[in-house]
């Protein structure tokens, strides 16, 4: 028997291939180079080159790799967001890696592999590819979560994440199998054309896939792992996965619902809206009571997943582009907030308690001001990136005749302002209590640089949102 191998051009996968080669180089070079600092810079260079490849692909016509992967404007937009996240996360991790870890090579390589998984999720147009990409991404993150080997909480978080994540993957697979059974197709367009009105089997398949996606982007009630994992993981990893995994998860989520299920919006629109309300409210209410900064940011990330889901639930083009814009804006502000947490955390503890924030502004006024900007942006205060993200997704809800959803979102934003402001208030207004020790802060130059970059973009995206929104609209055009 002869098998004719299909002739494929790997060009649409070029950005990912560049990162893969970089990751392999890092692993190789790790064994011979004595100075591990260069590994991070090598990986950083890899993300830049990959970014150039993304830009180059964006100039030409849309390429596609069988009916598995595509390099359309949507995939390239996600590539851009994920690459920015990866580059900043590498810088955030730099000093922690040099000082507290002896496995820099593996850390950097796994971070790059996770990035490849995220980019592949954005590019995947077939349920099988989405699943494999999801597993590449998840497996890398499980391991990275356990990288703070000096703390037992890190290992506990990794195990918890792994067990629940494997469970969620099984849900996803069952859903995919049922969808295949009812439509006879695995590619998203084929599913969309053959699903028809669905029926019980297709409905169950979509519901199970929804559970799988919800777990990955931490939607209530599938978010239980989030606080423990974000708290236990090394802070640089929490930063990376809170934005990267969310962007990648929402990328596949949005494409799946807009391409494969475009015909049955009437059924899933209200369900997603309900899920969004539940997620926002649950995340915000739980965040109110947190005494650990990392847990607070974890619950805040759940709430933000809820806001982003509003864009998906709206189901119109403003919702899609608003969601993409939201992912970009959220990446900068959340990376920044976690970056400040890295600066404030005491060596070995891996966390920052709210009480230890008191009086930060006295000793470190610039740091406190930076954190305040990130907090205001997360809360959605006008001239910053976070405000426009919310404006677009809530606007989409109004456009889709779901004004009630937008109102719930705005009420939730007001609720969230309480705990974001509480962080700021603690830093600024309270005097140091007698006997309180000095706020120990390490300010290594690379970390400062990463924070400055994040701060710059939070302000820039907020001041000129139309530039970024146009890119997002361009990307959302593929949904027609």
């Amino acid at each position, binding site marked *: 028997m002869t098998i004719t191998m299909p002739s494929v051009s790997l060009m649409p996968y070029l950005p990912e291939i560049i990162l893969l080669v970089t990751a392999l180089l890092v692993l190789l070079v790790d064994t011979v180079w004595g100075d591990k600092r260069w590994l991070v810079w090598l990986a950083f260079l890899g993300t830049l080159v990959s970014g150039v490849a993304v830009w180059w692909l964006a100039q030409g016509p849309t390429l596609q790799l069988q009916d598995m992967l595509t390099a359309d404007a949507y995939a390239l937009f996600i590539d851009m967001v994920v690459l920015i996240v990866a580059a900043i996360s590498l810088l955030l991790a730099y000093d922690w890696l040099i000082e507290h870890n002896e496995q820099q090579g*593996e850390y950097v390589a796994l971070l790059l*592999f996770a990035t490849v998984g995220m980019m592949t999720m954005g590019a995947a147009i*077939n349920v099988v590819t989405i699943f494999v*990409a999801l597993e590449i991404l998840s497996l890398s993150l499980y391991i990275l979560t356990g990288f703070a080997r000096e703390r037992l909480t890190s290992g506990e978080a990794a195990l918890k994440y792994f067990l629940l994540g494997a469970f969620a993957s099984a849900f996803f697979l069952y859903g995919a199998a049922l969808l295949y059974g009812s439509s006879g197709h695995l590619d998203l367009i084929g599913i969309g054309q053959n699903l028809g009105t669905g029926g019980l089997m297709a409905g169950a398949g979509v519901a199970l896939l929804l559970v799988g996606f919800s777990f990955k982007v931490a939607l209530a009630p599938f978010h239980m792992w989030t606080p423990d994992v974000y708290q236990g993981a090394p802070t640089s990893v929490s930063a990376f996965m809170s934005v990267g995994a969310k962007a990648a998860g929402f990328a596949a989520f949005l494409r799946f619902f807009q391409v494969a299920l475009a015909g049955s919006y009437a059924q899933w629109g209200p369900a997603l809206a309900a899920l969004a309300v539940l997620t926002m409210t649950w995340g915000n209410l739980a965040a109110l009571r947190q005494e650990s900064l990392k847990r607070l940011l974890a619950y805040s990330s759940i709430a933000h997943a809820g806001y982003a889901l509003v864009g998906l639930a709206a189901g119109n083009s403003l919702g899609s582009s608003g969601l993409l814009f939201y992912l970009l804006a959220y990446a900068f502000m959340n990376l920044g907030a976690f970056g400040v947490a890295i600066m404030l955390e005491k060596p070995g503890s891996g966390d920052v308690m709210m009480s230890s924030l008191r009086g930060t502004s006295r000793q470190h006024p610039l740091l406190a001001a930076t954190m305040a900007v990130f907090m205001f942006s997360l809360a959605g205060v006008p001239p910053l990136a976070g405000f426009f993200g919310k404006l677009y997704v809530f606007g989409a809800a109004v456009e889709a005749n779901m004004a009630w959803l937008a109102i719930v979102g705005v009420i939730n934003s007001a609720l969230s302002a309480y705990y974001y402001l509480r962080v700021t208030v603690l830093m600024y207004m309270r005097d140091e209590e007698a006997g309180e020790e000095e706020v120990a802060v390490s300010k290594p130059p690379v970390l400062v640089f990463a924070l400055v970059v994040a701060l710059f973009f939070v302000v820039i995206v907020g001041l000129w949102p139309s530039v970024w929104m146009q890119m997002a609209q361009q990307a959302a055009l593929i949904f027609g």
Partner: protein
Amino acid sequence: MELVLFLIFGFLALVGSLGVILSRNVVHSALFLLLNFLMLGLLYLVLGAQFLAVSQFIVYAGAIVVLFLFVIMLIGSESVGDFVSKGRRVAAYLGMFLALFFFAGLAYAVGVRVFLPPQGAPGFGAIESVGKLLFTEFLVPFELVSILLLVAMVGAIALAHQVWPAPSREPKE
């Protein structure tokens, strides 16, 4: 002929699954599970799906049961001995019911296959068709899986690597 084979293998599979939930010793349970997996593999063979059968042998019977045994050895099989308390009896009966249910389903599926003309495409589930699909239609995901395996390998090495200082934990009794 097929029916006879099915009855033998199916019966042994049922014995295996009953043994898993009824035996007091966890190691015995794992071995009964192995019996069950092997018989299921033989059932696949009867159905004409050689490739599925071989995967069943290698993946489930080979890898997964060995993994189970490793975990049991790590925990220590004595400490798990009193795990099956009276409170678990309900779970055992429920499991038995599910196993019977599963057996009935299998019996139905195979019965359909025995008494009705075959419905699947020729070569369904055989290694040729699976291989052909993997190298043509599903080439891209197939290659992507290699990245996944690489990640797993790097991760296993990273996690197993001894680091300083060892995390503090209570001394073992």
